[in-house]
């Protein structure tokens, strides 16, 4: 699994590639917590190249969502492939997360820090 951080209009974007499972989700969690600790109120997560996600990966994103909500920020997920979308639908979290199709949709209305 690989993690890359980009900035667009000063908004942090985390791009995750590969499998997010019991082995790799702690790395995702650490990266997200580090990003949110650095004054980032909003976070976009690009899941285009995530081939697999288990419940520990979903739990990591739930924790990130709770953290951003608490700070009055936004967490948005985008570019979910069919397998990842299925996992969110199965957990009914597709109604809880702000899931966008594209990066420009995800950036829409997000105020840079």
């Amino acid at each position: 699994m690989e993690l890359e951080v980009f900035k667009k209009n000063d908004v942090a974007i985390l791009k995750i590639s590969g499998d997010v499972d019991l082995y790799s989700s702690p790395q995702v969690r650490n990266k997200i917590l580090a990003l949110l600790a650095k004054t980032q109120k909003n976070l976009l997560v690009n899941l285009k190249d995530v081939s697999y996600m288990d419940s520990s990966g979903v739990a990591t994103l739930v924790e990130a969502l709770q953290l951003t909500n608490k700070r009055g920020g936004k967490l948005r997920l985008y570019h979910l492939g069919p397998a990842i979308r299925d996992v969110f639908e199965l957990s009914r979290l597709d109604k809880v997360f702000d899931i966008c199709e594209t990066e420009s949709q995800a950036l829409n209305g997000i105020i840079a820090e």
Partner: protein
Amino acid sequence: MTGQKARQIDTIEIVIPAKPQFLKIIRSAVNSICEIRKFCREDMNNVILAVDEACSNIIKHAYGKPTNQPIQATIKICDDRFEIHLRDYGKKADSNKIKPRQLDDLRPGGLGVHFIKSVMDEVVYDNTPDKGNLLKLVKIIAKN
């Protein structure tokens, strides 16, 4: 074998140390078997997810941590079903306490059992082994 029972075609056994980095091996094997059996994408992804979650639970709950102790997966490939038996030698699970959490309760964790029970047609916690656990998962495969 009765006429009603599905004919068993092949059995594949995989043993991995109960460590998160090896879960991918089980997922890859299940993926390959599903491809060979020409499962639809949704069934394939669901079966992979359920098996992976069950193996993760063995590491987290039966063994309590990553260990060199084994996860033994026995996959039975039949005409109309995918059946996998997962054997561990860790702490015995109390099947009465294994319940999926309420989905309205938004919190990290606790989704694994929900995934397993949602996607598999049969989930049986077999308490007959003297030591450890035997979990039997079955997915009935719809004929095209």
